[in-house]
C-alpha cells in the first residue's frame, strides 16, 4: 500500500509513450504494485482511444493494406505479454551489487531497449546515508524494500517519489532492513559533498 504516487502528469506521459525509458520503467514497477495508479493509467489509455476515434482521418497510401499483409505473412514475432501486475524488474538481468562505502551499494541496470538510460538500484544499510545530490532533470524513485527519509518526508516500500529539477536531497535510510530503491534520472544527477564528488566518476553519472 503506497502513500506516494507518480504525479498525474507523469502517468499521462507514461500512458502516451512520452516518458523516457528509465522513468517509464520505474513507473511500470510502481504500477505492478499500485492498483490506484493502474486505474489512472487505464483512464488515460481510454482517453487515448477517444482521441484516436475523433482524430481527423487522413487517407492511407493505396498500398497500405497490401504492405500490412506482406508484413503479417512473414513470421510475426510474438512477444510474450506481461501482465501489468508483474514487476518488469523480474524480467531484467540484475548485476551484482557494487560496494561504494560504508553501508552503501549500488548497481546500474541496463534496459535492452535503452541501454543509455540512467537507471540504478541503491542499497543503503541501516542508518547509512546515500550521497546527497542535486537534480538536473527529474528523478523517479521507487522504494522496493525498507524505508528512507529526506528533508521532505518518509517513504516506505511501494512509494514512488519524484524529485523535481533543482531539488537537493540527502536521503537517509531509517528501517531495520537495508533500504533498496530503484532510481531513474532524466538527465544526469550531480552528487554533492565530499562523498558525492568522490563517487561521481565511479558511478559514471
Amino acid at each position: 500500500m503506497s502513500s506516494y504516487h507518480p504525479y498525474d502528469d507523469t502517468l499521462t506521459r507514461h500512458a502516451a509513450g512520452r516518458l523516457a525509458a528509465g522513468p517509464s520503467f520505474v513507473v511500470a514497477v510502481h504500477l505492478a504494485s499500485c492498483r490506484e495508479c493502474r486505474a489512472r493509467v487505464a483512464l488515460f489509455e481510454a482517453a487515448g482511444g477517444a482521441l484516436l476515434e475523433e482524430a481527423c482521418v487522413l487517407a492511407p497510401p493505396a498500398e497500405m493494406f497490401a504492405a500490412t499483409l506482406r508484413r503479417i505473412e512473414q513470421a510475426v514475432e510474438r512477444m510474450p505479454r506481461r501482465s501489468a501486475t508483474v514487476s518488469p524488474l523480474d524480467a531484467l538481468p540484475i548485476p551484482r551489487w557494487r560496494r561504494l562505502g560504508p553501508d552503501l551499494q549500488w548497481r546500474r541496470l541496463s534496459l535492452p531497449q535503452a541501454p543509455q538510460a540512467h537507471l540504478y538500484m541503491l542499497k543503503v544499510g541501516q542508518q547509512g546515508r546515500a550521497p546527497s545530490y542535486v537534480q538536473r532533470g527529474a528523478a523517479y524513485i521507487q522504494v522496493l524494500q525498507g524505508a528512507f527519509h529526506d528533508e521532505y518526508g518518509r517513504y516506505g516500500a511501494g512509494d514512488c517519489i519524484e524529485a523535481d529539477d533543482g531539488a537537493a536531497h540527502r536521503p537517509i535510510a531509517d528501517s531495520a532492513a537495508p533500504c533498496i530503491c530503484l532510481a531513474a534520472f532524466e538527465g544526469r544527477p550531480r552528487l554533492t559533498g565530499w562523498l558525492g564528488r568522490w563517487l561521481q566518476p565511479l558511478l559514471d553519472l
Partner: protein
Amino acid sequence: MPRKPVRLAPRPSLRALGAGSATDDELDLCMAAVAGDGDKAAFGRLVQHFAPRLIGLFAHNRGARAEAEAIALETLVALWRDAAFYDPRQSTLAAFVFVLARNVLRERDAGAELASAAAVEPLAGDNTGLARATARLRAALENGM
C-alpha cells in the same frame, strides 16, 4: 505462441456489414474473427477503420506524414499479432489500438537518442473524468519528450 483454435460466438457474414463507417460491435466482431480464425477480410475492415485515424493522429502530433504512416503500419501489424489479447470487457477497441500505437512509439523513440525531457505544463484543476484525461493526454502527445 500458437493461435488458439477456439471458435467464438457465431458471427454474421462480414460482407453483409458493408463498407461504411463501422460500429463498435462490428469492429469487435472483426477482432474476434482475426483472433479466432486469422480472418484477413475481417482484418481488412479493421485496417480500413483504424489506418486513416492512426495516420491522422500521428501526422498531427509528430508533424511528418511519412512517419505517421510508418507508425500506423507497425501498429496494424501489432494489432494482427495481439488480436487475441483484446478483451472488450477491459477496454474499448480504440483504447487497445492506442496502447499498441503507444508501444510502437516507445520502441521507435528508444532507438533514437533520448533528449532530456521537456517540461510538460501540468494542467490545472480536477482531473477525474474522461474529458479532462483526454485534454491532458492530448497535451502530453503534443509536447513530445
